[in-house]
């Protein structure tokens, strides 16, 4: 029994370590003093971090990824939040069809989404580039934003908005002073998810990017001749920033709850 009780934590911790192995490897090899290919460990250096744009095309690809992810996130978050509010708060005809239309993009393999859009752009004679990638990213991000924000809308007490109206707030004041601040954590979570999905997407992007490189497509193309350590640097930097942000938010939340005496 004693041993049985330890078995699960051991398994869980091993699984977490297993998840971390390639991440640690990627970060470690961002410090590799590599020459042409970043496969064999040649010794520690900060050079890749200090001269990150030295590898040809890597910074341009990174900048493209940031632009695409930012624009896609903003558009998908606005469209998705509006849908989430409508789904929870309003009765309307065609709810089942709407839910299906939102579910299907998540249940469709990315190759099919990518090939479908590429076929459409081809049939329409639309040249592939940054715009086609953004159009594609917004499409697959909307459903994920809806799912994330919807949970928050469902947990929102309508009495709070009623109270706002009773205190003579007009609809726009109710939205900006009551509803929006309460929904904000859900909206932020949805936006972060959309950003992460867009930033790391390769499969759909590859069908619709034309000559434009994103960081994932740069890595994919470079994989045949050797990925420069600078790609590891950029990916590691994003990772470290994201993890630092998430951990700060979690720990901060825990401290705040403790101070307020809320037992979660």
């Amino acid at each position, binding site marked *: 029994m004693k041993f049985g009780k330890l078995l699960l934590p051991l398994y869980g911790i091993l699984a977490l370590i297993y998840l971390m192995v390639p991440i640690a490897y*990627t970060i470690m090899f961002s410090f590799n003093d590599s020459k042409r290919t970043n496969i064999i460990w040649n010794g520690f250096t900060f050079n890749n971090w200090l001269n990150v744009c030295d590898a040809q095309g890597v910074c341009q690809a990174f900048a493209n990824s940031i632009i695409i992810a930012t624009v896609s996130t903003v558009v998908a978050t606005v469209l998705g939040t509006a849908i989430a509010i409508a789904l929870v708060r309003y009765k*309307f*005809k065609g709810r089942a069809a709407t839910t299906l239309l939102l579910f299907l993009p998540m249940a469709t*393999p990315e190759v*099919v989404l990518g090939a479908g859009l590429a076929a459409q752009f081809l*049939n329409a004679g639309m040249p592939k580039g940054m715009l086609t990638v953004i159009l594609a990213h917004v499409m697959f991000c909307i459903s994920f934003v809806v799912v994330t924000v919807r949970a928050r809308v469902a947990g929102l007490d309508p009495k709070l908005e009623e109270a706002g109206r009773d205190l003579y707030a007009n609809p726009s004041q109710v939205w900006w002073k009551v509803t929006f601040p309460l929904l904000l954590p859900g909206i932020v979570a949805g936006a972060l998810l959309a950003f992460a999905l867009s930033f790391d997407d390769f499969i759909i992007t590859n069908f619709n990017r034309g000559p434009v490189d994103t960081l994932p497509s740069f890595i994919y193309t470079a994989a*045949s001749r050797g990925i420069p350590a600078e790609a590891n640097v950029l990916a590691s930097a994003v990772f470290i920033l994201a993890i630092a942000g998430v951990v700060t938010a979690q720990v901060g939340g825990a401290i705040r709850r403790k101070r307020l005496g809320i037992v979660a």
Partner: protein
Amino acid sequence: MAIGAFSHGPTGTAVSAESQKKSRVAWFLLLPGIVYLLLFFLTPLFSLVLTSFKTAPPAAFIGEYVYAFRWENYVEVLGMYGEHSLRSFTYAAIATLIALAIGYPLAYFIGVRLRPYPLWQSLALVLVIAPFFISFLLRTVAWKQLLADQGWIVGTMKAFAILPPDAHITGTSISVIFGLAYNFIPFMTLPLYTSIERLDLRLIEASNDLYANSLTTFRKVTVPLTLPGIVSGTLLTFIPAAGDYVNASANFLGSTQTSMIGNVIESNFLVLQNYPHAASMSLLLMGAILILVSAYVFKSGTDDLL
């Protein structure tokens, strides 16, 4: 709102005017997003259908096709790529089972054992989603190099005679399945965690009090209660795994012998420019997945996935 109120006339009840207004607001909120999805999700599927029946005109350039009703495209891809299809579904199914075997205990550990320690629980969750924050392609390349013939993992396994001296891991089915399982474990673990976190432990106690052993309790209490998580986790793993083409590509964990449907669609579309074959293959993949998913969801009896 005013028009809605007047159209009902003076006898129109306040309730119906109110619901009319509500449905107008609803459509105002829904319409932009819905139109977007119709234009960039649904219409592309119709584009695929149209493209899948296209034919090459006589003396065509590469990539030049005209609208036709060439249903033979479907017969041709089934004949040419039957093996790839079988491989895709087999790899995806095995990878899903492995991800479940790793993800379920992990989610149980975080959701139940770490329940008394909220901070540790949220930090463990951060580790589960951590792979999302670093490039999927770089993680896969990392495994390729870790599992390479000259790497220490294969070296150690050969030294202990777990592997024969001339064995390879990268480029085989094993490494592709391994990569698929690894890459989709977070997609498996998160929905499992959401279900397991809500598990009422008193029900497990009750089962133990009624003399069920731990296996029976797990089978009759824990699994049924966490079934929604199992269903969405397996779907979120199986669907992207079946359509993936990164892990199986020769520059990553696969070789030409491990090509999956995704690789076929990619090379037909982007390299060979055989759009009709790429389109018919995509639609066959989507059809097969929709049938499998509906059968699975129907059988497991959970229909509230969204």
